[in-house]
Structure formats: C-alpha cells, structure tokens
C-alpha cells in the first residue's frame, strides 16, 4: 500500500505523562513520529497534540484505534490535505553582510517571510506556511548563508 504523510490531531487531558503515553503507543508499535506539536487549548485542562507520521491507510487507522484506547485521549482525528488547513513555522538565523542584505530583503518579499530580529551582523527570519513552502524558503535562502534554524511541527485544523 502507498505510504504518505498523515496528520493526527488529538485532544488529551493536560497531564505530565500523556505525551509519553502517546509517543510510546506509536513507538512501541513501530510507527515513527515525523513531527509533533503540543499546546493547551481554550480549556486549560485539555491539550491538543498534532503529530504527523508517514504511513499507509491501514496503519493510520490502527494508530487511531490504539490512541483511542488511551484513557487520557479524549478524541483522535486523522486529517488529510483535503479536509484540513496545515501550517508550520520556521525561525531562520542568517548571517548579514553588506553584500547579501539586499538579496535577503528581496527574498523576503517573494517568500512570505518576515524579519523578526535585526542585529549588527545577523538577522532572524520567520517563515510560516505549508511544509512544502517552508522547504522552498529554506532551499532559496541556503546559498545566502543560513546560520541556524528552528522548526515547529505541523499544526492543523479540520475544516468541517
């Protein structure tokens, strides 16, 4: 069966060991977590975990069923490109020189990035978008001298 990226969104009780239960359930059954995001929801007792995994349809159904069995998991949904909006964010630290500063500014206009910090010889850019858009931005900026990056996992919201 064909493998592709699936995004799984979970509502869980906001307790210290819940994340390890979720990741342990996947890891223990041989499923890899590609990316992961966790934060609280409007209800402070409930957290949302969004994770992505490369899988096929049968396996992702099995993943959902196994996660549903965890006592602290309240709801699990599998989101796909078609039924959800997905975003990632990256912070990108660039070396700034007199030569590349104009190039960087030009890149920002085309790439939907913005400058969130400007120092004497480095700057930090913020890029938000779909995973492929982030990849494009990184590839584009690479030749200009990326010093470091930090990327979030995917977050996603179902459209229904």
């Amino acid at each position, binding site marked *: 069966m064909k493998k592709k990226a699936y995004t799984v969104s979970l509502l869980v009780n906001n307790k210290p*060991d819940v994340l*390890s*239960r979720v990741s*342990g359930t996947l890891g*223990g059954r041989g499923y890899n977590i590609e990316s992961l995001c966790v934060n609280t929801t409007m209800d402070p007792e409930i957290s949302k975990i969004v994770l992505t995994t490369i899988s096929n349809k*049968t396996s992702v*159904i*099995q993943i959902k*069923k*196994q996660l*549903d*069995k*965890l*006592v602290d998991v*309240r709801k699990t949904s599998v989101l796909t490109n078609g039924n959800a909006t997905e975003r990632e964010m990256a912070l990108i630290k660039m070396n700034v020189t007199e030569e590349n500063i104009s190039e960087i500014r030009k890149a920002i206009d085309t790439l939907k990035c913005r400058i969130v910090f400007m120092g004497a010889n480095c700057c930090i850019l913020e890029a938000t978008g779909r995973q492929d858009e982030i990849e494009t931005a990184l590839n584009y900026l690479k030749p200009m001298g990326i010093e470091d990056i930090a990327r979030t996992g995917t977050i996603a919201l179902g459209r229904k």
Partner: protein
Amino acid sequence: MELTGSQIFIKSLEEEGVDVIFGYPGGAVIDIYDEFHKSNFRHILVRHEQGAAHAADGYARSSGKVGVCIVTSGPGATNTVTGIATAYMDSIPIVVFTGQVPTSFIGTDAFQEADITGITRPCTKHNFLVRRVEDLAVTIKEAFHIARSGRPGPVLVDLPKDVMQSVTEYKPVTRISSTVSTYRPAIRVSQILDPISKAKRPLIFSGGGVILGGASDELREFAQNVNIPVTSTLMGLGAFPGTDPLWLGMPGMHGTYYANMAISHCDLMIAIGVRFDDRVTGTIDTFAPHAKIIHIDIDPATIDKNIKADVSIVSDCKSALQLINESLRNSQFTIPEGQYDDWFKQISTWKAEEPLSYHQDDKIIKPQFVIEKLYELTKGDAIITTEVGQNQMWAAQFYKFDHPNTFLSSGGLGTMGYGFPAAIGAQVAFPDKLVVDIAGDGSIQMNIQEMATAVQYNLPVKIVLLNNGYLGMVRQWQELFYKKRYSQTDIILQPDFVRLAEAYGAVGLKATKPEEVEPILRQGLFTPKTVIMDFHVSREEGVYPMVKPGSSLSEMELLTREMIN
C-alpha cells in the same frame, strides 16, 4: 471523617469489595501494612513479588473479579513487571499497588526509587502516580473501573509514602471522571444470520473474549442452535464444552489437525472474542483462505489488525450473542435440511485420519497419559493452571475443559513460572475446589518459592510435574530445526522434588512407571495438602501435531511425529 492515606486505602478496597490482597511489604508501604494489621484485612504473604502479581491474576481469571496485589517501591515494584505484562497480554483485570518514595524525593534517584509508572506504561492498560492524598480515593475507584471495563487489563497505582501518611477528609467516591469508552453493539443480526443460512462449511472460532465477557452460556446456545462446529484458542478453552460433539479442539501451531483443516476449508468463520494471534493463524495470508469472516470483538483495535473481516461488530461478546440468540428464538430462521451434511462428513474423516494420539507402552510414562488420567480422575471438575512449554500444550490437548474460568494459562506472553502462583490465587478464590498446576520441571523452578505461601495458608494446590529433565519445548525445536543440538536445554542438575516438597512442609510423591501413574494421582489429588507429584516422563516426547513456524495451517499434515522420524 479525617483519615490518613493508608486508612483511605483500606476503605477504598473495602468499597470495591476486595476481600483479599496478595503482597510483600517494604519501607515505602510500611504505613499501609500497619493498617492491614490494625484492620485485620486479609493479606496473603507471597515469597516473591512476581508471585503476588500472578496470584492476583489467577484469582481474577478463576473468579472473574479484579485481582489485587501490593508491593514496595523499587525492586518490589520491578519484580511485578512480568506478572503485569502477563496480565496485559491476556487482558486480565488486576490492580497492582506499588509503594513509592516520598513525593519530594521523586526524581532524585532516592533509595529504592524506580520510575515504575514509566517502566510499566507499555504493559498496563493505564497507570497512576498519586501525588496528593486528596486524589487517592478517586484514583483507586478509577483504577478498578478501568481494569474491569471494556477490554480488561492491568492497572498500576503508585503510592508515594508521604501521600499515605497525609491526612484528609474521606468520603466514599461515587462518581469518577475517567472516560473509558464503552461501545454499544450496533448489530444488524441479519449480517450474521444471512451468511449462516447460505454457508456450506461454517465454523465458529472463539477466544478469550468469550470467557472475559462471561458469554459462555450464550456461545453454547448459539452454536447448538445453529449446529455449527466450534474451535477455540488457548485463551478460550472452557467457554465451549470440550465434551460436546461440535467441539473440534484448539487450532494453531499445536492445535488438532481437524481444527486446522476446518479453518483452512471453511467458507464462513464466525470469530468471537479473538485477536488472531500468530500462534493460532500460521502464515496470515493463507489463514481461512476460503472464508467470509465475521469478527465480533469488544476492542475496535483488534478488528482488521491481523485479519481483514468481511463483517465486523464492535461489541462485548455477551451482548452480541444475546441479540443473535434472541433473534434466533423469535424468527423462523432455519438452515435447509442437510446443508452442512458434507461438511460434517468431511470433519469426521479428518478426525478419523489424524486424532490426537500417543502410544503408552509399559515401560516409560508418557506425559499425555498423565493428563488423560488426571482428566479421568477429576472428570473435568477442577481448575487447571499450566506453566509454559510442552506441559501447557499437552494440557490444552488432552484435558477436556467443560467450564469457563477453569483453564488458566499464560497465552500471550508465555510466562514460565505463571502456573503455580496463579494456582495459589485460584485456590484462594475457591478454597473448596481442586486446583491443579500442570507443570514442567523448568517452569516450576521459576516460582518454586511460593511453596511456602501455599503451605503457610493451607492451600491444597496440586502440582502435576511432567518431569522430562529438559526445557522440553525448546528441546523439541532444537530436535526439529537445529539438528538435535540441545544447547542448554538438558537440565543436568535437578532438585529431588519429593524432598523439596517435604522441606517446605508439603507432600512429595514420585512415579517412574506407567502403572504408578493412577495410584500416585489418586493419592496426590485426595491428600488435602499442598502436593507435588513428580512424574518422570519420556524424555524426548514431542508435542504433535505441529504447524512449522512460518507455514500455513493447511500444511500441518507435514509435521506429525511419523514424518520426522
């Protein structure tokens, strides 16, 4: 009422109707043990914490109630892990209480600290670390609820010492927040009855879920009404009578030839409370290749996990079977005369071709002979536990189980050392019943220290030891697949089991000749004490028939004794 954590602990157990706890004390639980003493709570002192977990499991499997044990922090807690994993694999409801270092010491590598909730996360249905005494009562309530509801399983509750010493206002808990989903069976009975009316070669394949769900009577009614033959997994033995004409025995690696043939040729399989374990299915793509499969199970995650079902019903076995039986009673459902005749004829042929068999001569005791005699003498009216290995398979093959909750065996994890402490747990639950552990000489030594427990509490558990001087099942694989290189399976040094029994204050008996088997069994079974019966059996006897690992059930005929020698 102001109570300490330890007092609340006792109250909460009483609220749950717990009448006995298996355990072993230590520093972290000393306050709780003080309350046991003061309140005269029934506590069985085991000799190793693994024994406590298995005893709680045996208590649960035989009685259908939640089994409970308590141990200290660190090594006490880690010693229970095998018992917890055993219960987890077989979906057995137990609650394990572990002591923990005081909350302020957690995470400091304090003396006898172990992160037991971390260690047991993958082998418990759920676990808790209680950080505040105010949460204690409700956590215990939730633990019991989770252990017994839905697909049952072990739950661990970690109790820091300071929490048990703290004081709070106690009132019995009536409501819990825990959200274990329960599934209402959404069944259209026609989904099951239509295929039955059309099938020519139907088969019922039942498992541990029927016993856990208390659905044995319903299964019997169903099978007999529709007149369909039944095979059950190791975990399901006893749910359907082993003496019924519709019974085909257990399928799988060491199942009967006819059960495996029936699976390989049926055109409809009604699978109830099974999870299609690999020891049962053989190679998965050739399992029941001609059958439409109806799968009923309480755990949605078992549906389509190993075997794709054509019709799947998420329900506890009892509700599902009740609905089906009701509809059978009220409708004009009939199966056309003679529709299954050819099928039954075929099954009879298979049974005649390759029955379970062995040859008992007058020199050396055959292990199968011991089990058959045990069955004859007990007439099936006993609780049988097993260890793991050949002894377990012979017990499953040659003892006929007519009642649920009378065959206790570690099916999923295959834990050597399970049978004896489990028998102790069952004997505590049923003091007046005959409880027999069918053991191998390797396995019995894994928890032999529990002899002291059995003798101390006057538990007249019988150990029927099939002593072949080998780690027999591993030796059998070495014989078949490793050119008889018996690497580390020949047990060169054995204790004298008769004297060992006597050293513990139990009774030890020994039989070395076939004609001694019956008298020794009679003497042992009717002695109202803990007894080891040491049967010196044919050393290189094998368990047959056998499906080679990695083969299809239909290839079973390739591996009977005759083909190998």
